[in-house]
């Protein structure tokens, strides 16, 4: 019984949150990795792109809510998602035409594009805070839990409860669908293959008649969709606060680099590696250990390796370790 309780407690506090968080990071890292693979620079504005897309979703959600439109048990935000994706696509394509295109024509070095993307990041950051304000915004509605802790306890008679939030379930399912669609697109369609070809060998892609501007356009469209979906899922799961999205940049980049920049499969793996590291290191293991260990060995302290305030230190440490010992990441991406 104690063993079962330990597993339930572990699932409740570590596994389920980490899987949900990992899916969100994976979607974010996929966007970063696609930009790196095809436009060949690290897009620092990605976190704020996510924030912008999510902001539009939040605003449209509020509008729908004021009209009484909802999806019953599911969050209204799902209905608003397409609007967010469209607005976000317009923003990134506008930015590309206004800013990045100039540097692309100059055949600028990647490092210059990185600095440029930082400028874009500050502008987008300001734009989002100007429109919606810097504060926390709640926009999740519908059913809160798939299984609540109390129901679970009643069902199983265990001491520990297992709660699965609707947003967590939704995150995992949406992430699976989006990733499946993305891989199908990249591996099966002509346009997707041309994007991979361009990422692999730019000159040969040109010789084969692949139009780079077309490839870049499709990349931005996909990145906008990925960023909006990732941002909305994160916002539903937690809350929407522009500054948090800016901070998400670190774990997202850590995920992309751990997996290997430019490798979509790596981005997904990296997302889960970072999420599980962050959650397991900042989790207080006292409860689980008390169940598992004999009574006289039960820990007195919280057995928390790092306070949650320092969770970014985990991604940062992993990032540094990977860059030192395996710069190309787990899936043999490009070195930074």
């Amino acid at each position, binding site marked *: 019984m104690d063993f079962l309780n330990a597993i339930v407690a572990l699932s409740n506090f570590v596994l389920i949150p980490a899987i949900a968080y990992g899916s969100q990071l994976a979607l974010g890292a996929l966007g970063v990795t696609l930009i790196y693979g095809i436009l060949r620079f690290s897009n620092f504005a990605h976190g704020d792109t996510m924030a912008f897309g999510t902001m539009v979703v939040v605003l449209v959600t509020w509008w729908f809510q004021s009209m009484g439109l909802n999806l019953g048990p599911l969050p209204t935000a799902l209905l608003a998602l397409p609007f967010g994706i469209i607005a976000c696509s317009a923003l990134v394509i506008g930015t590309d035409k206004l800013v990045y295109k100039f*540097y692309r024509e*100059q*055949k*600028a*070095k990647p490092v*210059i594009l990185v600095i440029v993307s930082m400028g874009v990041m500050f502008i987008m950051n300001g734009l989002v805070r100007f429109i919606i304000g810097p504060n926390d915004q709640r926009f999740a509605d519908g059913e809160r839990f798939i299984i609540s802790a109390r129901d679970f306890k009643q069902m199983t008679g265990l001491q520990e409860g297992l709660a699965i939030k609707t947003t967590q379930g939704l995150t995992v399912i949406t992430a699976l669908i989006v990733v499946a669609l993305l891989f199908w697109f990249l591996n099966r369609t*002509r346009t997707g*293959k*041309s994007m*991979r*070809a361009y*990422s*692999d*060998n*730019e*000159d*040969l*892609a*040109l*010789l*084969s*008649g*692949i139009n780079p501007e077309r490839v870049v356009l499709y990349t931005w469209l996909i990145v906008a969709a990925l960023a909006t979906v990732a941002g909305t899922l994160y916002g539903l799961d937690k809350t929407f606060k522009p500054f948090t999205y800016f901070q998400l940049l670190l774990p997202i980049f850590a995920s992309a680099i751990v997996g290997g920049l430019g490798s979509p499969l790596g981005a997904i793996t990296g997302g889960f590696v970072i999420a599980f590291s962050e959650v397991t290191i900042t989790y207080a293991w006292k409860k689980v250990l008390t169940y598992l260990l004999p009574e006289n060995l039960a820990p007195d302290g919280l057995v928390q390796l790092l306070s949650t305030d320092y969770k970014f230190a985990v991604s940062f440490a992993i990032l540094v370790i990977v860059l030192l010992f395996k710069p190309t990441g787990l899936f043999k991406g490009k070195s930074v």
Partner: protein
Amino acid sequence: MSSNPYQDGRGNKDRTITKSGGGTLNVDTGTEQDKHTGEAFLIGDSMTGGYGKTGPDILHDCTIAVNKGEIAVIVGPNGAGKSTAMKATFGMLHLRAGSVRLDGQDITRLSPQARVRQGMGFVPQTSNIFTSMTVQENLEMGAFIRTDDFSDTLAQVYNLFPILKDKRHQAAGELSGGQRQQVAVGRALMTQPKVLLLDEPTAGVSPIVMDELFDRIIEVARSGISVLMVEQNARQALEIADKGYVLVQGANAHTGTGKELLADPEVRQSFLGG
């Protein structure tokens, strides 16, 4: 390093491919040597020029021509401008004088991409395949500009290179050197070109594989495609060549059929090692 502050010297990136437009068309200045280019299918006529608008001239009044269904080979010492001469016919150079004509049509001002659409296929010497993609995907990308059904061409390429059919779902980067070259040639053949340009197709492959590659190239030429190639292995290349060009310092030094050049004592002395 160029003077443009936005750029860096990413050396292996051949940016000349992206050049839009092309060289300028000037009056044929003529050469002193008789090259019998009257019936040529592709001809780079009296080309003078170098890389970039301001770069020094690498080619000096150089003429390269290939007839329909024949194999023309460019040989010469290191740094003679062999690859440069071939790239010039493909529009990767800024020509200050001379012209390039394909099937009687002047293509001097076309970009390399436009020349692909006109029926030229080009196989670069290095990074000539998509390493992360499967063999079949490489061939599909070769046919990117085709909107019709290209399964016939795919079958033909697999027929020509049976080993590729066995490995069609394998990543091209995992293949051996010779097989990579087959993928590279196959990719270029997918557009059904009328002229195939090969930049040192046998660089870095073993002698046995080299013989096999030459056999395949002869087969390609027999199917009516003109082949223009640059080769390090001058002797073997001239043996299969209908026409050979020996370049020295960017200018024509000797021209003739492959057999003539092999028999020419001066060519033997200087390039074929006696």
